[in-house]
């Protein structure tokens, strides 16, 4: 595992997902302009599996559902406010109701960017997803934790949300056996 401790969780998401695209032909990354430049190299290597739909967050989530219907493991990404709140019905119907799996990865979770104002705050993302069945929600506290959870989510089959933040703990938490 890389330990670029000065990188943000979002940086680590980009490097981790780019590496996973090389390793797993089942994976696809779906973007709505946010973080798109970070995926330029991955898009050049995998033009059909790095998809940027432009500033269209409903389509971001619905296209993710369509990709999953064909058997791929899609990872959709943008800021939390535009990934969960704006296209909430698409999350509910085009992922959950279709019975498919997918990974949602946000950035700027909660009140990460106070100067950005209310439009870029999404403190209710986790609460909203908790109203839908079948979701596993991860809130990592350090880029190393984020990478571990992203790799785990990419390898799984169900509905997983990984909420990434600019905030971070000084060190990753100690890993513990499940249930302890």
């Amino acid at each position, binding site marked *: 595992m890389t330990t670029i401790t000065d990188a943000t969780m979002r940086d680590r998401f980009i490097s981790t997902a780019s590496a996973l695209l090389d390793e797993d032909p089942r994976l696809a990354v779906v973007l709505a302009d946010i973080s798109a430049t970070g995926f330029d190299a991955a898009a050049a290597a995998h033009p059909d599996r790095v998809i940027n739909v432009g500033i*269209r967050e409903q389509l971001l989530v619905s*296209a993710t*559902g369509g990709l999953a219907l064909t*058997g791929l493991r899609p990872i959709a990404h943008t800021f939390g406010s535009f990934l969960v709140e704006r296209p909430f019905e*698409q999350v509910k119907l085009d992922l959950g109701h279709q019975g498919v799996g997918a990974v949602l990865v946000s950035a700027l979770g909660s009140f990460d960017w106070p100067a950005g104002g209310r439009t870029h705050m999404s403190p209710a993302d986790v609460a909203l997803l908790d109203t839908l069945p079948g979701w596993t929600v991860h809130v990592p506290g350090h880029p190393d934790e984020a990478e571990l959870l992203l790799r785990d989510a990419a390898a799984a089959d169900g509905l997983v949300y990984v909420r990434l933040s600019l905030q971070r703990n000084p060190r990753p938490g100690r890993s513990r056996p499940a249930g302890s």
Partner: protein
Amino acid sequence: MTLTTADADTRTLYAFDDLAGLMGRMAGADKHGPAASSTLDVLWVLYDRVLRVVPEGAEDPGRDRFLLSKGHGPMAYYAVLAAKGFIAPEQLETFGDYDSPLGHHPDRTLIPGVEIGSGSLGHGLPLGVGTALGLRAQGLLDPAVWVLTGDAELDEGSNHEAIAYAGAAGLDRLHTVVIDNQSATHGWYGGIASHFAAAGWSTATVDGRDHAVLFEAFTRPHPGRPHAVVAVVEPKN
């Protein structure tokens, strides 16, 4: 209750004229009545002559995909699925019952051959975009993706995200058939096809009751571009 598909060897062969009888087997078939029958001819031509999908291959990765976005009034859809052997005709009599898989909006997890669960408008075309992308990413360049929408359904903004992107991305395996019964409250300035054409789609506007004309429009070549067929039927009101 689980639906089972009829065995290919013992399956009854149905013709278009049999669909009215099959629809008549659905109790409560008056629900969304006009919406149900407006799609009948288009659905028949697609399933009878265009789509390469059979009940035995309903999970085949190389099959064509038909996504009924306009999930209201699914009786014509269920009748065609029964006529083509995806569901047993006697199951139609359970339509809308407490424990029937055949609800007033189709559910892909309950009904063989149904590719998406629909009902809320404006989801089929964006799901179709993702389906076309997913097939392409896996090297499945042959299967066609077909999405059926209504003219009023195009009011939903999510369709316009999909139309604009699909045209820009040149998703030439994506097809949309718009059932135009002139039910959009504010209409479509310039005609429905012009909105697809402006986004780079190939388009055709035809009589939605004429099977030969529909077949020609459905099978028209459209290299490098997605294809939209506007099937005009009698006004809803």
